[in-house]
């Protein structure tokens, strides 16, 4: 008897087998962490104001480049080994979009209010980030059933709360959070990739084409 649900879940899981998504996400976090540290070290200078004003450019350019890199490696590393698969792009329902916007609004408003009440709340920024990413990783882990995402969730919470508890808050704490968590994700992705490459040697070219015998 085939367990359809298990099979469907396994199919979604297969996207993460090669660890490339984590490597890409890790790189993105490292870039953002580096950016925050650069912003801090140039604060107050002309270079600092330039660095501050290009956040969106840095974000979108790195996102674009990392995405291109991910596609390149999927095409040259994963597809020849375990086959090509394209997943359906799910459009978020209007209800879900509204819910996401409401939650984001509530979190932002709570942070602004807290900051007004006590500016020292900035020290909690790494903890807030850590817990948010921990929650996101937990949701993903639950949805796709990849165990290492539970570990990443715990790591995010631990790093964020740890940095806040150590008093490294504000931009510096945020920078360190992104650098440390980025390194953890990158390491997890590389470990997954090594296992994947060991388990899936590149097959002979004639094995990839498919049923020419059809």
């Amino acid at each position: 008897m085939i367990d359809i649900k298990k099979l469907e879940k396994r199919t979604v899981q297969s996207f993460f087998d090669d660890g490339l998504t984590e490597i890409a996400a890790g790189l993105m976090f490292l870039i953002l962490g580096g950016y925050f540290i650069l912003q801090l070290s140039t604060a107050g200078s002309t270079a600092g104001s330039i660095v501050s004003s290009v956040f969106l450019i840095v974000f979108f350019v790195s996102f674009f480049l990392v995405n291109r890199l991910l596609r390149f490696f999927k095409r040259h590393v994963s597809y020849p080994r375990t086959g090509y698969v394209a997943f359906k792009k799910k459009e978020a329902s209007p209800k879900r979009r509204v819910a996401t916007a409401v939650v984001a609004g509530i979190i932002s408003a709570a942070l602004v209010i807290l900051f007004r009440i006590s500016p020292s709340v900035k020290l909690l920024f790494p903890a807030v980030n850590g817990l948010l990413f921990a929650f996101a990783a937990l949701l993903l882990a639950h949805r796709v059933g990849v165990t290492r995402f539970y570990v990443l969730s715990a790591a995010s919470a631990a790093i964020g709360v740890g940095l806040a508890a150590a008093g490294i808050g504000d931009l510096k704490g945020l920078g360190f959070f992104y650098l440390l968590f980025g390194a953890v994700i990158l390491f997890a992705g590389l470990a997954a990739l090594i296992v994947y490459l060991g388990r899936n040697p590149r097959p002979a070219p004639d094995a990839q084409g498919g049923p020419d015998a059809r």
Partner: protein
Amino acid sequence: MPADARGLADLDRLIHEPARLALTAILNVVDSADFLYLQRETGLTKGNLSSHLAKLEEAGYVAIEKTYRGRIPLTLVHLTDKGAAAYKAYRARFKEFLSRA
């Protein structure tokens, strides 16, 4: 024929076969997949996979596109609207049958 058994007999036999059920379940989750991916995920041999895909294609449940990635031949498979509807109906019927059994 008892009502329960009739429910089982009403199932789409084309999808009910384990290998084809696995194929449609996978294709229902993805947009498209190539022959190598399907072969690895289902554990079927090349010949078996070809034969099951041919049956599904004949019924209009899947569409098979033969293309090339560089110089390597690539066979892309995706579930058609008819196939997706048949799979959805199969799941609903089977669930209903199990709940009555």
